[in-house]
């Protein structure tokens, strides 16, 4: 890329103190300004989808939890939704409410975690320690409800494994009260602090057009002003009844600019939204069973007979996560399991965000999409000794052919695609190109 002598390259990663997970950036830099970036991912690839093909569905559930330790409710919920759709399993209403409670608790812990990491990247360690101190409250509650601080093993096909008992309800209420009381302080510390504002305002901008065309998801897209939230757009569980609305900086009275500041606004307001959802669920939750299969052997025996495919989607703290699963009768293992994690969709947003920014802003811009490499890392396909480079046009063609095929077979209609589904899918796949070693 070094056309002129003034442009030189800075490699960062895969092991670097500013990165919590292995990934490599190669920045083309002119003086202090970033002119381009190349991203090399794949260091955390563990071949989870492949391993699942040798394990039964219960083992796969545990494996899905270990895709990412931060999203260890989102991934199991999504795979259970996919399997339940494939197998036609009904989830009892109480279990649906419980799943919402658990995933909103996870959102609170994940967003607070992000806020702390972002403060750390800005060099504001006091704020890191403050946010991580208050984050321990939600971890305490998750430990109370699940028995573990991380990796909760709560969802199971057909329901959840643990109930919120009457004795635990006051603890949930206490947590909601605790964070409600703190929220203003947190907003003060992040959004009304002049030094945070100076470092994050107009830094790492992703315009709404770019966010739309790059198919950004989650808070990354919402900070750019897109009203995009799976809980609102394709409601699942009881989110439809709860009436979730996508949060954009407009809810804070700001016109969205898509910079790092806006991303902080969205995440902090979502903490408040999650608190409201948890409270509503707690009071509206009906009594009843928490799973339709109380005995695991019966569940496994039932799943072994299932033939079909299913799609599950969920709004994880980082954005839309999708699991696709195909099951065959007489086989315990899933035939195909495909995971699309939110960072996978958000990765390309880095390219416009880094453009013309300063080198010193690299850590905060990298952190601003809340990247999760372990969710995202993919394998590079090499066929007949040569790496396959798939262009977006090819993928578009393939995708359209697939839609036609599926409309013919009317398989996809069961999972209810939106009118834009195939367009979105194409670009999701189009983002694969960097993984195939292509330059950006």
């Amino acid at each position, binding site marked *: 890329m070094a056309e002129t002598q003034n442009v030189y390259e800075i490699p960062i990663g*895969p092991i670097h103190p500013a990165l919590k997970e292995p990934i490599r950036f190669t920045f083309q830099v002119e003086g202090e300004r970033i002119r381009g970036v190349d991203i090399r991912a794949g*260091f955390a690839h563990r071949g989870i989808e*492949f391993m699942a093909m040798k394990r039964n569905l219960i083992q796969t559930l545990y494996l899905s939890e270990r895709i990412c330790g931060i999203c260890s409710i989102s991934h199991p919920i999504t795979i259970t939704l996919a399997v339940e759709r494939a197998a036609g399993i009904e989830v009892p209403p109480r279990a649906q409410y419980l799943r919402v409670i658990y995933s909103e608790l996870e959102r609170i812990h994940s967003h607070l975690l992000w806020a*702390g990491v972002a403060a750390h990247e800005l060099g504001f360690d006091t704020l890191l320690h403050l946010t991580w101190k208050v984050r321990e409250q939600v971890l305490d509650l998750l430990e109370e409800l699940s028995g573990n601080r991380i990796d909760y093993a709560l969802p199971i096909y057909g329901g959840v494994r643990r109930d919120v008992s009457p004795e635990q309800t006051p603890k949930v209420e206490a947590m909601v009260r605790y964070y409600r009381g703190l929220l203003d302080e947190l907003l003060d510390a992040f959004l009304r602090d002049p030094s945070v504002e100076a470092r994050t305002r107009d830094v790492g901008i992703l315009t709404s057009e770019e966010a739309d065309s790059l198919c950004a998801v989650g808070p990354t897209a919402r900070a750019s002003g897109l009203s995009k939230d799976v809980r609102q757009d394709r409601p699942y569980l009881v989110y439809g009844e709860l009436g979730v609305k996508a949060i954009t900086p407009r809810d804070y009275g700001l016109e969205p600019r898509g910079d790092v500041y806006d991303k902080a606004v969205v995440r902090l307001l979502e903490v408040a939204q999650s608190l409201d959802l948890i409270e509503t669920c707690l009071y509206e939750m009906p009594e009843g069973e928490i799973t339709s299969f109380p005995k695991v052997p019966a569940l496994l025996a039932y799943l072994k007979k299932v033939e079909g495919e299913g799609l599950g989607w969920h709004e994880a703290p980082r954005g839309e996560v999708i699991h696709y699963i195909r099951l065959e009768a007489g086989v315990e293992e899933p035939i195909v399991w495909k995971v699309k994690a939110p960072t996978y969709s958000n990765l390309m947003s880095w390219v416009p965000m880094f453009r013309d920014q300063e080198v010193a802003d690299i850590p905060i811009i990298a952190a601003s999409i809340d990247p999760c490499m372990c969710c995202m890392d993919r*394998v590079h396909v090499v066929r007949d000794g040569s790496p396959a480079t798939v262009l977006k046009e090819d993928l578009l063609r393939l995708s359209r052919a697939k839609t036609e095929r599926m409309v013919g077979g009317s398989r996809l209609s069961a999972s209810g695609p939106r009118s834009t589904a195939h367009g979105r899918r194409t670009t999701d796949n189009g983002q694969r190109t960097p993984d195939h070693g292509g330059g950006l």
Partner: protein
Amino acid sequence: MGLSSFKRALWVFHIATGSCNGCDIEIVAALTPRYDVERFGIKLVGTPRHADVLLVTGPVTRPMAERLKRVYDQTPEPKAVVVVGGCGSTSGVFYDSYNVVGPVDKIVPVAAYVPGCPPRPEAIIHGVVTAVAKLEQLAGEKR
């Protein structure tokens, strides 16, 4: 073991070799106010060249194995490697992956294992202390 292990400040370098983030966030949790290891002088540093202890998380994926070895070589003696998490200790749930070449003790010598998926911050602190006590014991035998 006792307090003699805390005679000098321990500087720790964290390397993720394909972990799921679970152990990584628990390491950060150990550094923040609830557990606050900095009061013992245990501190996360930005380079292995400053570190006494390497905290290794993750099952060691193929591309990270060579880099883990390099980081180990860059760490000055005396050093101790602490494996945090079940997948680094035994490969755990990732035992039959094509892209996992671990566990960590296949790549670099390990002083202490902290099992758990993920281990609690208390366990991580205990692991670091155990590794250092072991180092001191070894140093005593050599003398």
